[in-house]
């Protein structure tokens, strides 16, 4: 990840880094003083661990230092407007049109669609301004997504204290999480590797997810906050689900980069996109990070199952398909690292990998039955 031969960490940190770290620590400390007594031992550990992880992430990725506090501030504004009363969502202008969780999500959807259009316009016409606007809109959509999730977390408590829970518990909520994480991972690699032109491709898969979210909202009212069934009432959900989505987001992103690579190698859009070698490397790095988080997420899932389902592995369809996805990317990485494969076969494999991942993500919930059908359509 980082440059090997560099100065030690503390020498490289600037004032902004320290300020950000202070903000996170103070926020965590304040949260603990307000709610610490309501958290059990594991949840306190998660609060502490997340704070450290957030600081590390901010130091590692400078944009995070303004993104996360901004999303937090937007959500805190929404919470203030609510004034402990859920009905305010229909009365307050700010909540109704901008800041309630559903409004935030609708803005997220709109902004992602706009970003997709502008990115494509920019990439096709090689216009830097349009591409930058596309990136900017992607950032804005991500802010609305994260702020919306925070606000939704708060709203669930407003419905009733026993209904309150982190918003990663059903298919609707995790689709929002998927859009958010995929966008953020793309924005990180865009800055690091200067591959802004590829944003148009990644935004395609995000737009597909947005389309699904819209259908799911209007046709199935999936946006309604449902309380958690007993099997999901666990602190494990806070770490198993997000880790899984870092994996899914990375795999989705790398598949779209694979698509871009395949087009370049056939001479389509080659002059408008970065070189195939650069894209190859980004694809590899994305899959490596996705693989790491997916492994961690699967292990966490097994440990949760040992608390909830009678054993760490039940060959449940969702578990089995997670294994299949894992095997798929393990094989991909073996081919690249050991056999030295590059280029076209790996790009194809990454695209096929997205199909396998998609099936494990929603296909299992839609078509197969099993212990995991919480997210059933």
């Amino acid at each position, binding site marked *: 990840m980082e*440059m*090997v*031969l560099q100065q030690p960490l503390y020498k490289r940190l600037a004032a902004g880094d320290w300020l950000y770290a202070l903000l996170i620590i103070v926020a965590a400390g304040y949260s603990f003083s307000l709610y610490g007594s309501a958290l059990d031992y594991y949840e306190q550990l998660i609060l502490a661990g997340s704070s450290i992880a957030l600081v590390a992430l901010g130091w590692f990725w400078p944009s995070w230092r303004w993104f996360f506090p901004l999303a937090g501030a937007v959500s805190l504004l929404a919470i203030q407007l609510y004034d402990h009363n*859920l009905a305010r*969502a*229909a009365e307050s202008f700010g909540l*109704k049109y901008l800041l*309630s969780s*559903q*409004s935030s999500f609708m803005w997220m959807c709109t902004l992602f669609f706009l970003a997709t259009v502008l990115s494509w316009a920019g990439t096709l016409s090689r216009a830097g301004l349009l591409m930058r606007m596309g990136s900017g809109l992607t950032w804005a959509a991500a802010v609305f997504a994260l702020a919306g999730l925070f606000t*939704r977390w708060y*709203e*669930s408590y407003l*419905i009733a204290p*026993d*209904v309150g829970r982190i918003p990663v518990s059903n298919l609707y909520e995790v689709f929002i999480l998927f859009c958010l994480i995929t966008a953020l991972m793309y924005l990180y690699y865009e800055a690091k590797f200067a591959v802004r032109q590829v944003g148009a491709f990644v935004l395609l898969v995000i737009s597909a997810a947005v389309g699904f979210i819209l259908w799911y909202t*209007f046709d199935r*009212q999936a*946006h*309604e*906050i*449902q*309380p958690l*069934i*007993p*099997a999901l*009432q666990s602190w494990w959900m806070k770490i198993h689900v997000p880790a899984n989505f870092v994996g899914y987001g990375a795999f989705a992103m790398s598949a779209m980069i694979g698509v871009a690579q395949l087009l370049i190698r056939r001479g389509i859009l080659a002059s408008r996109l970065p070189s195939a070698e650069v894209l190859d*490397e980004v694809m590899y790095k994305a899959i*490596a*990070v996705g*693989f*790491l988080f997916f*492994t961690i997420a699967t*292990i966490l899932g*097994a*440990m949760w199952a*040992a*608390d*909830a*389902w*009678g*054993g*760490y*592995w039940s*060959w449940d*369809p969702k578990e*089995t*398909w997670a*294994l*299949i996805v894992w*095997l*798929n990317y393990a*094989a991909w990485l*073996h*081919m690249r690292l*050991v*056999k030295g494969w590059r280029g076209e076969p790996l790009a194809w494999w990454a695209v096929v990998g997205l199909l396998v991942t998609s099936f494990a993500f929603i296909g*299992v919930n839609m078509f*197969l*039955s099993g212990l995991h059908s919480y997210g059933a359509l």
Partner: protein
Amino acid sequence: MRFAIGLLTILAIASIIGTVLKQNEPYPNYAFEFGQFWFVAFEKLGLYDVYHSSWFLLILAFLVLSTTLCIIRNGPTFLREMKSFRERATDNSLRAMRHSQQLDLTLDEARAMRLLQGHGLRVKRVPRDDGSVLLAAKKGSANKLGYFFAHIAMVVICIGGLMDGNLPLKLGELTGSIKPETRELPQAQIPEQSRLGAGNLSFRGSVTVPEGKSADVIFMNSGNGYLVQELPFIVTLKKFHVDYYSNGMPKLFASDLIITDKGSGKTSEHTIKVNHPLVVDGVAIYQASFGDGGSPLQLKAWNLQTPQAAPTDIKGNSLGAQPLKVNGRDYRLEFGELRVFNVENTGAPGSDDKSLEQRLNDARSVRQDTKALKNIGPSISFKLRDQHGQAREYQHYMAPMQQDGEWYQVAGVRSDVAQPFQYLRIPLDKDMSIASFMRLYAALKNPALYDEIRERTTAKAMQGQAISPAMQQQFSDSVRWVLSRFAQGGFGALEQFLDDKVPADKRQAIAQTYIKILQGAVVDVMDVAQAKAGLPAWPQDAKHYRFLLDSLVSVSALQDYAAPVYLEMSGFEQVQSSGLQMTRSPGKNVVYLGSLLLVIGIILMFYVREVRVWLLLQRDGTRLAMTSNRHNRDLDQDFERMVDYLNKQAGEA
């Protein structure tokens, strides 16, 4: 390694089979679904428990073998690589490296050492024959350690999985010492060969314990039957708790257990919930599910042949069966589940056609619309089986239900499990009882009363000048005929007559006439019934008239009810049962260890880069060379940075 990749692919495909074919179902389900030929074919392939089939285990075994061989083969080389500084690199080889540059500066040795060490590199100094000094440095050898960790982890995880697998069980079944039981027997009668002792190292099964009862075994599905696993302790369910959300979903279910150790007799009390299992003696006890545990019921049986008689009290137990003798015939009353909560959506259907604005508004609100959800109270389901083995299934609700402002008692009936229930609503009188309805029903079914009834009806009609005196007799006969026909077969019987005997163009008109007659006569039926029972006359107002009209519908519906008795729920004492899953898995910590090794291994392999730096300190210059196990942009940038750094350092000197 290609073999290993091939195996991974086959493993992935084999795993898919187990996800599209439901695993570990009772064999009759499979036989039913696939038909005889494919059922046997799939069974031979072991597809019903594919992850424990011999060929799947064989693939896993090959994978472990392949990984182990890989570790053994690469092990010595990698270990050597990790330790080595490659200090024997010749000038030529240094020159040939991709990242190699001759720098026009000199560094003294101590300075150069410090420079390298300041970058976190470990350095080995090698003086050369020609007077130059080679500093061979490296960093990130842990990268190779990652390879070992990750691959050893796979083997460790598979060993853990094997420890928790059912290999001994499969061997036992193969040799015949263990045979699954296929009959439904009381637990104590199940023979030795289907029992597994408490000393069994790893198992996973479940048991349902009703409140107040105990269990000291669990059951495991195996092949076409099941096995009994003995436990080293006795589990008693002291009390079961269940809590619901306002929308009817379960919020919490917990069991208060008393664990009695079989060996020492010591008891301990614990409460388990979902996500909070209890571990006793190496066995983890999980709260898996809950249900009815056989609750005592009190019912009132109305004999539909003699509905004027008072109902008899019957006692029963849910989930149990008992004989029932009605009108000289023997029946079997098989009770199903008692459900104390029934949350139903009582909203009107057809509210789906919403305008766009309404939909947008709905999409804004995160709160579920629970206004239409109501708990309609307890229900009991049961089957009534006659001497020939024919049965119908019934579902009776205990609490009165309000519809359009009036109260009813609802009962469902179906003759086929695959069909939805058809419902019958009996109107309730002012005492919230069905006694008035039954009285009316009795009168309707009693031909001896028809003359009195038709007299009254005809007199009323004459008074109201609805018929002329000439029509009187004919009308009276019609009344009798309609009543009799209706009593025999409800509206259906009247309809049947119309279809058979009346030409199509006249049916509508005549049907209307019949309905009018019925609706008029029913008042008199009720009056006669009330008089016979010595009760005051039935009030003549809209509410009570509606009761009579509803009763007509119910009388007709009772035709489909087709049972000799109507069983009304009058009371119950809820006894719940808790579904417990129990697992002993000695391999769990082995798998967790393997998992930790795997994660560390992946992190080391991908995020620790092995870098080697050589500084050849000559009298008139310095050669810098670098390699890494990953040749990519990072190395390019590191090399450039190193060159700049050295130039700057030499400049400052």
